[in-house]
């Protein structure tokens, strides 16, 4: 088991290194001198000098990279150009907001996905089957940021039930008002994972029900509840893996949805960074999100053998 953990670790370290390289080069991808990309358009002389020094642009690239990497490892993600504040100060509250939304979204997709999957797996009629397949195709095809707009048009504009955009004004306790603001973006985010979880649960249910041991249980007159437990046991590793990866996608890929709903998370931050060409902020945000995604996948990989004894051999 320890071997397995170590091996996975050895595998992800070069990947994290590569991710950092890609993020570092984002600054240098910018057209022209990276200086011009970082410089505020009407910056004062001192500011330009200060930025020059803080970025060490006079150094050769490998030196710049390792300096940057050292700084990142010690928690310094650089300085936002527009706000002139450490990137981390911008990022931290945004991360909290994004996580809130992502966890809410995953919770919705878990309930809805498992529910739909079980329903489809147990009915398994032609109509239900068709409906699920069609939904799945549409589900993976639909631009979810657009679904966000549609939801706003329906529930906020036409019906006026829920707020269209933004986050509840800060209050002491997390209350109903916070939830109201989160419902539409969370549903939008949950859309794709719901489809994927539903498909996987349905496949597992059908598979387990076909298995001999379940038919034996049936024959032995075991209650449906016990059979259901078998389904849960067999489906949980897959569902867990999906949830892990989807959570990563929700956190990493929520930029569009957060932009639609003006939710002050990392996506919104990225959007602002792009609009103002605040490259250090862009770089820092992407680095943190990608690292989070890699680590999450790593954890899912680690958890797999505990849930699925067939995988212990690895």
């Amino acid at each position, binding site marked *: 088991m320890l071997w397995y953990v170590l091996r996975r670790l050895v595998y992800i370290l070069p*990947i994290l290194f590569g991710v950092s390289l890609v993020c570092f080069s984002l600054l240098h991808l910018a057209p022209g001198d990276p200086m011009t990309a970082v410089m505020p358009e009407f910056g004062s002389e001192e500011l330009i000098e200060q930025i020059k020094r803080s970025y060490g642009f006079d150094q050769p690239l490998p030196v710049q990279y390792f300096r940057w990497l050292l700084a990142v490892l010690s928690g310094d993600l650089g300085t936002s150009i527009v706000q002139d504040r450490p990137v981390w100060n911008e990022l931290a509250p945004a991360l909290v907001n994004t996580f809130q939304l992502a966890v809410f979204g995953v919770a919705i997709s878990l309930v809805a996905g498992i529910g739909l999957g079980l329903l489809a797996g147990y009915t398994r009629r032609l109509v239900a089957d068709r409906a699920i397949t069609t939904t799945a195709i549409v589900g993976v095809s*639909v631009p979810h*940021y*657009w679904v966000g*707009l*549609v939801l706003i048009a329906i529930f906020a504009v036409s019906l006026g039930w829920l707020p269209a955009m933004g986050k509840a004004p800060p209050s002491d306790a997390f209350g109903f008002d916070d939830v109201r603001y989160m419902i539409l973006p969370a549903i939008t985010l949950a859309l794709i994972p719901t489809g994927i979880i539903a498909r996987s649960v349905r496949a597992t249910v059908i598979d387990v029900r076909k298995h001999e041991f379940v038919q034996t249980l049936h024959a032995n007159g075991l209650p449906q509840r016990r059979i259901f437990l078998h389904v849960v046991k067999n489906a949980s590793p897959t569902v867990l893996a999906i949830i892990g990866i989807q959570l990563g996608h929700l956190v990493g890929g929520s930029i569009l949805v957060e*932009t639609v709903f003006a939710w002050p998370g990392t996506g919104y931050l*990225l959007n602002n960074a*792009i609009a103002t060409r605040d490259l250090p902020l*862009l770089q820092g945000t992407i680095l943190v999100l990608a690292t989070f995604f890699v680590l999450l996948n790593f954890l899912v990989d680690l958890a797999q053998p505990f849930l699925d004894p067939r995988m212990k051999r690895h």
Partner: protein
Amino acid sequence: MARRTTYVDETLTPQIAGGRTRIQRTYWQAARRRLVRDPVSMGCISILSLMVAAAIFAPWITPHDPYVTSIVNRLKPVGTPGYLLGTDELGRDMLTRLIYGGRISLLMGLLPIAVATLFGSVLGVVAGYFGGKTNMIIMRVADVFFAFPSVLLAVGLAGALGAGVVNVLISLSLVFIPPITRVAEAATTQIRTQDFVEAARATGASAPRIIIGHVMTNVSSPILTYASSLIGLSIVLASGLSFLGLGMSPPLADWGLMLNTLRQSIYLAPVNAVLPGVMILIASVCFNLLSDGLRTAMDVKP
């Protein structure tokens, strides 16, 4: 003794009688035949052909000028006479702009996949065929790009490169190269261990010749099937980047950008505001259904 063993020399009878005439079909002909017989795929092909044709011939078929604004005609609802799908926030005809928008949106969805398929298959086939260090270097780099959620990578690259259609094309191509490389590598690794590849090597054929003559003939169908399944996603992502303002610049039409500019008017004309998304959805669903049909059609068991 052994020489006396009773091996009977039987006359060779071809298993398939030569009497009846056999229609000669290559693999690709058979696959095309199956695709043509699938009603869903043919429906999707029709819709997509219509979209592409409309986009190409836009200047001749659209009822209005896509750029002439009119304060009086702002946000006319769907069904207004003369403005079948209404007007946008600057009074331009929606139908006209949706047709024009298809030009950039479809191109931005298709071109990255074409580019990524080209580079991804070359990289994957080279990695798979030569194995060893070559494989390790190529696949590790692919792993790194794989470590990013696709939306994040696309936004990051396009964001760093700056707004512009070309930059969006470059970022999306970079996003799709690693997955295609992986599929090509896996398929090639599987093919290269087969005896017929060894036999080809035994005839003294060079590596490029074997790759073209033996590997590509077998890996092209899984690669194409997979690449086609990415077109829908590519269209959605490309429009997403436009929606963030990373693609075209405003006066021009593009589905994602239209969603962006109409967003401000969602309280006034919610239907108009979501209309461009319907186009994205139709294109993406059609490509995905077509890709499914393609997979089934190409799955001709040898």
